[in-house]
């Protein structure tokens, strides 16, 4: 566990999470959620939990993003003001 990399990853996590809440475009929100999952996988890797990192990368960044994309094709893309 390297502390500067850890802090940098947590900073990225914070930025991506706030951006995913803030953005009005749902496609961008889904992509940001996938990026959040990927950074979270790196955090798990930093913490030494390779198993959980594997699951997070496969489920969170891969399958879940694809399923949300498939859902997005059935709802309007832009969030209402």
């Amino acid at each position, binding site marked *: 566990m390297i502390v500067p990399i850890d802090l940098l990853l947590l900073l990225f996590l914070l930025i991506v999470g706030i951006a995913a809440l803030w953005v009005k475009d749902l496609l961008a929100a889904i992509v940001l959620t996938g990026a959040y999952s990927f950074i979270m996988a790196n955090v798990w890797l930093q913490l030494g939990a*390779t*198993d959980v990192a*594997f*699951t997070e990368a*496969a*489920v969170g960044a*891969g*399958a879940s993003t*694809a*399923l949300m994309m*498939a*859902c997005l*094709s*059935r709802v309007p893309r832009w969030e209402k003001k």
Partner: protein
Amino acid sequence: MTPVRKTYKRNVIIEVTTNLMFPLILLFGLYVMIGTGGTGGGFQGGTILASAYILYITVFGHEKGREKMPESVNALFKSLGLFLYNGAGWICVLFSLATAQWLNMPAFWPVTDFVGVAGARSFLVGYMVSVGIGLTVMAAFVSQYFDLAWKEDDEMEGGEE
């Protein structure tokens, strides 16, 4: 349902890359499922297998995806995974590997004499349970994605008529 040929712009790079990567992703999923010593496992490997199919369906559309993964094969995998998972438990019970030592079944079926209890147990935990979980997870994810893609096409047809 009549097959509607959707006119979409084909991208040669994406199709060739998908065709190239599809078996490799499946192989990597199998490696994660049964190959690694410590990390990985059934759920992770199954999700990677499912993501290979999801990639294929996303690129080629659900009709060619159905050719790759028909409904019958999907249902077969879904129940075969449960069958393997359940069967590992039943083999443990019947051969007194982990749960029911008091039954003393090896006196009647001396399988563990030439396999060894540790070998049989590692086979059951490392391969049979993992493959069972992986197959069920893969089939469940793929059928979920098929359902979403299919309904979208139905609504589009209904909207056009």
